[in-house]
């Protein structure tokens, strides 16, 4: 429903807020989303401040601490709250450092992919013609590959490693914001305010960046958060399959993989990193859902 202000009413009194601000307020009023937003931020903080908060050096191995159980279990030690892995490394510290990998890869891939995707989508959707044909075909082709298979194939070629993972994921990831943006742009470019800008003589870049872009940022925001959650799982899956980051860097996925053969007895090796993935991804997903509820007008009533 539209807000109808009194025609005769005093203009000065109504606070001017953008739709974005209004939606953000709506988002902020969703307590669940805010709670999980804080958890997400907690993970980000953990990643940034890892050296400060990790109790131990994540690669400090000591075979005498091998498979030390969590502190509350028999034989546990409170200086290693979540226990130690097969080489006697502190699991908590490794999880803390592992958040760097997950968040770095998630954020970088999404940042790169969204930037490329948004620009490509805008160009394809607004300029149409051969630009659209080229971009859309490329998108179709890349969409033809199941994601994980594409990433696995690329990493099989290029070898594992942080940079290769980011590239392998970003090569395909941009397609998703691109499609969203292209669709939204197509829909928006027929809208009358865009025609009005053309009628005023605005340039194409002006129209794309100032008229269209701000109006399609909401779906982009929603999509990129969902995708970020997805990318984090993908990275973990790659690491799990042994195609992830290199040791001694700790990645949650590779921690689960390493601990998996200990699962029958020393369950803490894989359980905690697995929980970390679950919690981070879940938090991002909840936040994303909150954003969607706030931004998607279909849920407004």
């Amino acid at each position: 429903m539209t807000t109808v202000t009194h025609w005769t009413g005093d203009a000065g009194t109504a606070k001017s807020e953008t739709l974005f601000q209004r939606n953000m307020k709506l988002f902020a009023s969703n307590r669940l989303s805010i709670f999980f937003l804080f958890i997400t931020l907690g993970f980000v903080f953990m990643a940034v401040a890892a050296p400060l908060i990790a109790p131990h050096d994540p690669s400090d191995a000591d075979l005498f601490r091998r498979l030390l159980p969590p502190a509350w279990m028999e034989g546990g030690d409170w200086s290693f709250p979540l226990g130690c892995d097969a080489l006697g490394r502190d699991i908590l510290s490794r999880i803390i450092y592992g958040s760097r990998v997950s968040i770095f890869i998630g954020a970088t891939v999404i940042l790169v992919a969204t930037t490329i995707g948004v620009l490509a989508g805008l160009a394809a959707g607004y300029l149409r013609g051969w630009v659209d044909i080229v971009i859309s075909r490329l998108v179709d082709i890349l969409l033809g590959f199941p994601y994980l298979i594409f990433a696995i194939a690329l990493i099989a070629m290029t070898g594992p490693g942080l940079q290769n993972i980011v590239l392998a994921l970003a090569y395909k990831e941009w397609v998703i914001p691109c499609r969203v943006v292209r669709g939204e742009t197509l829909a928006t470019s027929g809208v009358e305010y865009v025609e009005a800008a053309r009628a005023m003589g605005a340039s194409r870049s002006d129209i794309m960046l100032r008229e269209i872009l701000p109006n399609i940022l909401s779906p982009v925001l929603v999509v990129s958060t969902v995708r970020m959650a997805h990318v984090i799982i993908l990275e973990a899956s790659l690491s799990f399959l042994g195609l992830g980051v290199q040791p001694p860097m700790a990645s949650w996925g590779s921690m689960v993989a390493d601990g998996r053969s200990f699962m029958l007895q020393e369950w803490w090796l894989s359980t905690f990193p697995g929980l970390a993935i679950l919690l981070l991804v879940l938090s991002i997903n909840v936040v994303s859902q909150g954003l969607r509820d706030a931004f998607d007008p279909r849920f407004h009533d």
Partner: protein
Amino acid sequence: MSDLLAISGLVKHFDDRRGLLGRITGNPGALVQAVNGVDLGIGEGKTLGLIGESGCGKSTLGRAILRLHEPTAGQVLFDGTDVTALDASDLKAMRRRMQIIFQDPYASLNPRRTVGEIVAKPMRIHALATGSDLEDRVVDMLNRVGLNSGHLNRYPHQFSGGQRQRIGIARALIMKPKFVVCDEPVSALDVSIQAQIVELLDEMKQELGLTYLFISHDISVIGYVSDRIAVMYLGKIVEEGETREVLENPMHPYTRALLSSVPHLEKTAGKRDRTRLKGDLPSPINPPPGCKFNTRCPLATELCRQSEPELRHMQGTQSAACHLSLANAEG
């Protein structure tokens, strides 16, 4: 005639035919003949009302004049300059002098921009004013359309439909254009608000000496605002003339049907003698041969089905595209 705007042979086809592939697959796409050879003139300071059924090409014509749609063929002479031949920079300059006001007050304003930004944008694009000068002009314009400086920092969603339409008008008029296409500016509004906007447009016209192409499907509104009326049917003008003459003595059977379909306040429930049209507007993808109206015309003859009538002078200021001469058939 020294018309401000002279359109001749204007054609706009939307072509998404698929060529060979389409023929192989039996999905050839379509050629939409939205505007199919229109000649019109609008004298300076006058309002030409354009009326016709939904889908007959009114908006397309309006947009083609402004080159929001690239015309397929034809000429648009504005003040002696052929708009269709302008290059990008000349076109940009031309856009200071020709503007458009849209139908949908909700879609025509960018929801992410404040009213101030929206109204100032044309001035910015053409670098006509900056800083406080710009703000003064924006506020001045807002005042003229019945808004005030307190609205500057608000967003479109905070306004009602009528108010939004005022913002759209302010935006179109801030560069002081000479010519404005009003594409159904009141159709989306409630009756009581419609009247406000019609009045405002009229005031502006007087104040700024504007020339309007006023598109509407409501013949009472058209009758009220226009000096001349053009009736459009399936991409063509079928009748044109001074408002009063056309309304009092329509020359084209379509115009007659249109007029007799309008419900009147004065008469109560009793039935009037009317020209009722059968069926709908044919598709502009494959228009009927001969006179485009022959499929619905109660008077159609064999000739009408075979050859297409040209717009020709009938009487007084009126021209019509009809083989039949209805000039004096009825009162």
